[in-house]
């Protein structure tokens, strides 16, 4: 039995410590992902807490055929969606640097962070698919399971996401160049 499987079994039997150890490797990544979908840092933290509580409570429903992170992200996306439906602030309106939790957490750089660009130009589902693929290294099959979409949908939308981002990125780069040269 692998270490992860042993921790899952212990957590299923009521060990909160085993569960904390189990999710330790995923917490920061989940928070980062939830931050890109929340209107405040506090909301992202609440979403993470709800995700972990739900995962612990319903651990019996986890199917070991899937990666644990796949199951965890599925819960996180549901929680973020719930949180957003209660929220009055639209993510698209967070252009003000002072309000946007994602902007506040991004280190200063010469060029714009691609995830800010992605959030502006992609739909939430495509954004999530791109994140799971390029940050979490998930397989197409796992992404389809997390988003509850078909494999073909995932492939096509990942490709569309890439094309859109490429085009947006080139546009921003051209605008910046023309500004620099007056």
């Amino acid at each position, binding site marked *: 039995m692998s270490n992860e499987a042993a921790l899952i079994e212990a957590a299923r039997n009521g060990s909160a410590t085993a569960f904390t150890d189990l999710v330790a490797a995923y917490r*920061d990544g989940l928070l980062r992902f939830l931050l890109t979908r929340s209107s405040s840092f506090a909301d992202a933290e609440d979403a*993470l*807490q709800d995700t972990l509580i739900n995962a612990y409570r319903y651990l019996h429903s986890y199917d070991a055929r899937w990666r644990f992170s796949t199951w965890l992200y599925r819960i996180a996306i549901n929680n973020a969606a719930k949180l957003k439906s209660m929220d009055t602030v639209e993510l698209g309106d967070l252009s003000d640097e002072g309000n946007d939790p994602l902007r506040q957490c991004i280190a200063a750089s010469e060029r714009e*962070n691609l995830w800010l660009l992605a959030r502006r130009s992609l739909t939430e589902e495509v954004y999530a698919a791109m994140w799971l693929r390029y940050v979490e290294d998930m397989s197409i099959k796992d992404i389809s399971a997390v988003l509850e979409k078909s494999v073909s949908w995932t492939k096509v939308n990942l490709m569309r996401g890439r094309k859109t981002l490429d085009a947006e990125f080139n546009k921003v780069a051209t605008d910046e160049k023309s500004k620099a040269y007056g």
Partner: protein
Amino acid sequence: MDKLAKQLRDDAHRIECSVSEELDDRIRASLEGIQPEPVQRPRRESKSFTFWWASSLTGVAAAIAMIAFINLQAPGSGPAQTESNPQPLIIPTVRWHTETAVLTSPLEQEFEDLQADLKKAEEAVKQDIDRLF
């Protein structure tokens, strides 16, 4: 890994945030306060051989009784004859005024062109997908 994928990964790591000690304590306290729901295993019904044998015998007996009952019925007790309906059946007729659409040759040409474009686009998408994944 291509350039865009690398940039996406690097930019994700430039988002500086981690679980604070305060949040960690909060999560731990919440987890201590709840219990995971027990594993729900499907109930296994006991199907003994005697039960199976008895139910089969009952089914066979019921079938024999039903066949005997139908065959031993008196010949006059069949379904009652009814008189035919004296009123003639009127079927309303509907007149359709339709014209067949005829594709003129420019339209046909355009349709073929569109199909060809669609096929080309499909092939391009397929190639892109195969190349990427």
